[in-house]
């Protein structure tokens, strides 16, 4: 079992083989000790700062003291259930770790950028959603020709007669040129 736990930590196990060591860690005290020891070794090798002794126990105690507001406290969780919950997240975590390490290795010189999921890159380009407003441009004499041509077909005429045409002969453009 110890070799399996070690292999799992190194990312050498296939997804379907993760269940057994994970259940063991949940159920077996010795397996849990091995898990903790291997992490201690790997942290020491990488020079990671060590957590003080009994940190996990103290965190558990603090969690137990937290008031539960909405949901009732769950009873003791059965090992297989927790294992089922644990597998996908462990997988995701290890995948994320591998991706991150790979990204670091492949882009040593570049400034950090947001990693783009390879899936997104292989998809066909989707329609760009316009967020910004187009630039504001001044009204020109030529624009007034369009406004006049449009005005002929505006239902506003039937309420206001010729009055809306004032827009298409406005002096506005000359004023802006000055």
């Amino acid at each position, binding site marked *: 079992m110890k070799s399996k736990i070690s292999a799992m930590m190194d990312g050498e196990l296939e997804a379907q083989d993760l269940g057994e060591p994970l259940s063991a860690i949940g159920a077996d005290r010795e397996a849990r000790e091995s898990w903790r020891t291997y992490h201690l070794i790997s942290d020491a090798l990488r020079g990671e700062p060590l957590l003080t002794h009994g940190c996990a126990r103290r965190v558990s105690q603090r969690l137990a003291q937290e008031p539960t507001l909405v949901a009732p406290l769950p009873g003791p969780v059965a090992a297989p259930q927790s294992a089922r919950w644990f597998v996908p997240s462990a997988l995701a975590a290890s995948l994320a770790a591998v991706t991150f390490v790979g990204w670091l290795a492949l882009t040593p010189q570049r400034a950090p950028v947001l990693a783009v999921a390879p899936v997104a890159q292989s998809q066909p380009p989707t329609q760009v959603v*316009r967020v910004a*407003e*187009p*630039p*504001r*441009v*001044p*009204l*020109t*004499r*030529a*624009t*007034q*020709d*369009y*406004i*006049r*041509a*449009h*005005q*002929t*077909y*505006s*239902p*506003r*005429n*039937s*309420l*206001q*007669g*010729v*009055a*809306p*045409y*004032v*827009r*298409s*002969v*406005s*002096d*506005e453009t*000359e*004023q802006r040129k000055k």
Partner: protein
Amino acid sequence: MTRALGALVLCAFAGVAHAQASPEALDWLHRIYLATEKLSYTGTFVYQQGDRTETSRITRRAEAGSAVEKLEVLDGSPREVLRTRDEVRCYLPDSQTVKVDRRRDPRSFPALLPAQVQELSEFYAITMDETRRIAGYDCQAIVLAPRDELRYGYKLWADVQTGMLLKARAFNRSGETVEQFTFTQLSIGPVPRERLRPRAVARSWRVEQAAVTPANLAQAGWTMSSDLPGFRKVIEITRLLREAQPVGQVVFSDGLAAVSVFIEPLAGRAETPPMGLASMGAVNVYTREVANHLVTVVGEAPAASVQRIGDTVSFRPPQ
């Protein structure tokens, strides 16, 4: 539970909103339309948009079965617009030009008949508002509040006696005025014919004819959609706009607001106009380039609506 309750409240609200089209207010819209068609009058009105105001004089003479209307801008250079049933002539002294737009199919010209007014209430909550005196006339206010953000709202003040529109205000979704027409003086009654003649001595001026002909832009490879609920295609034509090259024009309307899409080749133009958004009161103009053509969208609608229609324009060479 909360969500269900929210949905229920929304439904109830929508129901109330839909019920908000008072028959009396709809009648008033029709009355305004009839007054615009039938009355003879002369008056002075102020057009306000942004921080600018411009004063103009309007003269209208109704004759049997037709009418002539004249608009003279009183500030700045004396520009004039003459409108008859078949034609609109703009006299522009600065450029010594007369721009002529002949109406091709009078049926495509929108009229606010009772049926159309009824349809309007699908997109606007049409209600009665206060009564107020404007330019010496007791007026009834009618509000057309848009049911979505795609349109502007309008408040209209009409003479209680004749239905003549004395004031019109267009407002945006925040309730801010985007433009306003207000008569400051108005006399309703017979107008002598000579008052309708243009002042401009335009014999030597250049005349630009719009030369409107029906068109099918889809056949030429152009696709576009109104994309906005309630905006339907009203007319599709080709026309001339100052330059020799014909310009395609498609008009969409919801019965009160209209948006025109103009398409013309960019090749051969002396200069490319700036691409983007411009505005004149309640009119927004959106310009973009599609397949080496200039697409200009002009509409009495919020900039986002005008842009949305403009962004649907695309070209695929016909097979």
